[in-house]
């Protein structure tokens, strides 16, 4: 049975780069392409679904296989459809009522995402071969992974870190003394480390991820110049 695998990385907060990295069949990876399973070039359709929790569930299909390079999923192309926001059933392209506090969204929403909201993103990959008739497809394998998006907080931390390490003549006035600056650098380093750990910590579920990102956000807002 085919067990596909993929990598997904976030770029500039508003794009996800998807790559099929399923290895070739081997005794070490019996779920790979070829041999007893279908070949990579037999995959004629790939479906990628993104579960963003309350920020919606989105599904994309493409004639895509391993030989097709990377697949970029742009937030700008995704109509925003939150699950619980007040505007979800207003019958018009989702405006901003109830969505305006979601970081990464345009203040007037415009109906489309401007970035992937922070927190858990559960990604499902499904690969299909040609079905028995022309417009049917045969599911060959599924893979689900969770990634954690912290891009907007990362950017904010990097911006503050930059300002804390400007040259002597450009001292930013959000620290007044050497001690205060050192203290802020230590706290910022801690926040950064915590964020990086949260991205990879399997024991921290999506609620835990959201709570940590929120805590770090509160801290960053308190020191953000």
């Amino acid at each position, binding site marked *: 049975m085919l067990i596909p695998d993929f990598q997904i990385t976030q770029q500039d907060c508003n794009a996800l780069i998807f790559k099929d990295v399923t290895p070739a069949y081997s005794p070490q990876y019996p779920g790979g392409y070829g041999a007893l399973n279908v070949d990579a070039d037999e995959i004629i359709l790939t479906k990628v679904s993104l579960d963003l929790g309350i920020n919606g569930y989105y599904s994309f299909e493409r004639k895509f296989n391993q030989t097709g390079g990377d697949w970029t999923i742009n937030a700008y192309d995704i109509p925003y459809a939150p699950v619980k926001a007040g505007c979800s059933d207003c019958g018009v392209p989702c405006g901003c009522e109830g969505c305006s506090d979601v970081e990464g969204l345009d203040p007037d929403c415009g109906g489309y995402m401007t970035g992937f909201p922070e927190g858990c993103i559960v990604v499902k990959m499904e690969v299909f071969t040609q079905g028995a008739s022309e417009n049917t497809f045969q599911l060959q394998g599924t893979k689900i992974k969770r990634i954690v998006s912290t891009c907007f907080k990362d950017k904010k931390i990097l911006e503050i870190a930059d300002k804390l*390490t400007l040259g*002597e003549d450009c001292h930013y006035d959000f620290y007044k003394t050497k001690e205060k600056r050192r203290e802020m650098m230590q706290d910022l380093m801690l926040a950064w480390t915590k964020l990086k750990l949260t991205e990879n910590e399997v024991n921290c579920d999506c609620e835990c991820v959201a709570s940590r990102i929120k805590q770090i956000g509160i801290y960053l807002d308190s020191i953000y110049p």
Partner: protein
Amino acid sequence: MRITSANGLQERIIKVASELDCENIKLAKQGKASDEIDNDLFEMMFIHEFLPYWNTGQIRQKECLLNDKYNI
């Protein structure tokens, strides 16, 4: 996050920081460890951590700062 090449700057920071650290350990053995050196080391490691995530303009700026302050 996108990673930027820092053109060996990280390695140079580590080299100078290690020398400075050794110096401070020697001073500590004589009961003369310096908070100033600790602060300098921390600043170097702070920059080292974030360097790959900054853009090339920011990296150049940090390179000048490290050169002026620590001769890196």
